[in-house]
């Protein structure tokens, strides 16, 4: 008993320096940022030795989401959401596709693997510069068709002002409810096969109810703004999305390829004998088996996309309204406009969005580990 408590004390003392350092430099600073975001630190005298800071509660957050002058931030946030979704679909889809091709053991698989993984080794500033050239309005990709006698493309890859999939920010609450309803129904359908009762009771039923409330009660919700404000998917972000997919699909390819190689040959043989074609082997056996890899890829890519900064900086500059991103906005607000409190609020919003992806993952991993 005594021996055990001495061991515990030793373990605690060994861990103590790390606990203190992480406590101060990670969680302490997060706490400090939360505090700053609830003050009015900024504007004139922000850089004074002892700046005046008054507690203002959630005013900064409220202004970001509903303030008349914060429309830019809201577009950045919408950009970040579209950007994340497209990056996930693109990088995972393309990475998986290349991994499946390489899993057929073509000649020179090793060289091809290195070539596909190589963009990952480049810094975002370098790849951003390359893609900026490639997507220049009168060069690069746009002039490719002229090599086969076709007219050049006229699409403005990084400076188009067109937007699609637009919605009115006034209806924010309704939109949130639609998203919640969609997510609940999706999860419900996912577990319907395994646990019908639970799926209906906890997911499908509430999902449909929330959806109906959003549909019929649309007019009853308070509007987020006093005037109409449309946001959508700015086509100018397509170029940035392409560049990021190019840079990260090699990484997801490496993840999937390692996973495919880890599946025993017997399992593949068994599937072949069971009548699976090559495509159905991947669809029904290999890809479902690599669900943990898919989840990891989703987590990693989504938080990369939420933190995206340098690639956008290199491709379209820091203050392009069409291709803005909350991380860039945070930097500009904090260090160019010296509006520290508002910058901190943006940082916390980003932190919360990232936590929405990561916390469920960490919890499920922890549960699996304690189960196992």
């Amino acid at each position, binding site marked *: 008993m005594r021996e055990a408590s001495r061991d515990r004390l030793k373990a605690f003392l060994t861990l103590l320096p790390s606990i203190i350092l992480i406590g101060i430099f990670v969680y302490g600073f997060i706490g400090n940022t939360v505090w700053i975001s609830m003050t009015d630190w900024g504007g004139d005298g922000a850089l004074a030795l002892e700046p005046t800071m008054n507690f203002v509660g959630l005013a900064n957050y409220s202004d970001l989401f509903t303030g008349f002058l914060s429309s830019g931030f809201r577009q950045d946030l919408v950009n970040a959401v579209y950007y994340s979704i497209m990056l996930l679909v693109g990088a995972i889809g393309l990475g998986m596709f290349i991994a499946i091709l390489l899993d057929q053991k073509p000649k020179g698989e090793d060289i091809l693997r290195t070539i596909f993984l190589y963009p990952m080794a480049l810094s975002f500033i370098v790849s951003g510069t390359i893609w900026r050239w490639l997507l220049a309005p009168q060069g690069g990709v746009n002039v490719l068709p002229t090599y086969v006698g076709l007219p050049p493309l006229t699409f403005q890859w990084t400076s188009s002002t067109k937007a699609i999939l637009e919605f009115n920010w006034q209806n924010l609450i309704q939109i949130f409810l639609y998203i919640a309803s969609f997510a609940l129904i999706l999860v419900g359908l996912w577990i319907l096969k395994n646990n019908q009762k639970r799926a209906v009771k906890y997911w499908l039923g509430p999902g449909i109810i929330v959806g109906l409330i959003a549909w019929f009660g649309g007019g009853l919700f308070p509007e987020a703004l006093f005037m109409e404000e449309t946001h959508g998917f700015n086509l100018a972000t397509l170029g940035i999305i392409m560049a990021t997919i190019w840079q990260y699909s090699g990484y997801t390819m490496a993840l999937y390829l390692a996973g495919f190689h880890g599946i025993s040959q017997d399992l593949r043989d068994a599937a*072949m004998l069971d009548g699976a074609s090559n495509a159905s082997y991947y669809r029904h056996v290999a890809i479902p088996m690599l669900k943990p890899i898919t989840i990891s890829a989703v987590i990693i890519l989504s938080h990369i996309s939420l933190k995206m900064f340098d690639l956008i900086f290199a491709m379209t500059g820091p203050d392009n309204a069409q291709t803005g991103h909350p991380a860039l906005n945070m930097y500009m607000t904090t260090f160019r406009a010296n509006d520290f409190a508002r910058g901190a609020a943006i940082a916390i919003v980003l932190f919360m969005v990232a936590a929405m992806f990561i916390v469920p993952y960490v919890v499920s991993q922890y549960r699996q580990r304690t189960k196992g």
Partner: protein
Amino acid sequence: MANVEIKKVVKKYGPVEVIHGVDLSVHENEFIVLVGPSGCGKSTLLRMVAGLETLSGGEISIGDRVVNNVSPKDRNVAMVFQNYALYPHMTVRENMGFSLKMRKKSKEEQNERVMEAARILELEPYLERKPSELSGGQRQRVAMGRAMVRKPDVFLFDEPLSNLDAQLRTQMRMELRKMHMRLKTTTIYVTHDQIEAMTLADRIVILKDGYIQQVGTPIEVFEKPNNVFVAKFIGNPPMNILEGVCNVIDGKRFVVIGKTRFPIQDGVAAEIVDGSPVLAGIRPDSIKMGQNVERLPKDWWCHGEVVVSEILGAHSLLEIIIDGENDLLAEVEGRIVAHPGETVRIGFEFDRMVLFDPETKMALY
């Protein structure tokens, strides 16, 4: 159900030939066991029948159809793997029904066939479990169930019992035999375990270095081995092989090994004459002790000194030296207790002795 014809099948990996023109006919409803040491080509041969390995030469037909260029999924064969190869993300039900799903059978038919197989294999309580939640024996049964639901022309088994413990292996062996008696599906079974081969097979095929050594019923290969390799490989403990010379004494032929003389039966191996070198093969269980000696002719008796004795319960293994120079392994009844250093009376069933040519190592009958 179908017969399988393997004609002059060759397999090469680059310049290395591992199977050298094997011929084998597996009859309809037959249970054939391919047995041999590691690297003899038995699994490769099985995988060629399954279509998982290409042929470098020769021809394989299942039923009336040559299947050399038919893909595995279209051969209507089902295979059970050594490590079960169950899909870990699917439940037992999904694992067993996967092949039917791939063949676009109706949900009702899938369910019906899975339930039927589950009932036979007593897997009904486990249908909603994942393979990781099953014991080794249950996983093995799921693998068998997955093969059964297909109602294939041919079952292929690749060392399916080697991952199980000894007790479970014996039990599963019985179940496999019962399953074959019930379904009567043509079966090719690969193992390196000669006990499995002996207990399961209608006919055993013994392979070595990519050549078939012998094809025969378990009793044939045990009692009438084609060569020294088969004699030593089949049977545990292996056959005693003693090097001697044929001498004719008083008009009768004997294998003379130092001071020891083993009588050669009349009509056996006529080509062996006075002075021919010869190998004498004696099965350990053809050496008798105690009361059992009495049943043998008196001139088949002798005395030997026990060197080591291993009591195994049902029987005992004894190492005995006869005439002070020839070492023999004997398998005798368990109730007979012999201590090291003791001189005991033993008798040989010389009518079961097998003679081999020392040069070719082939049996002489």
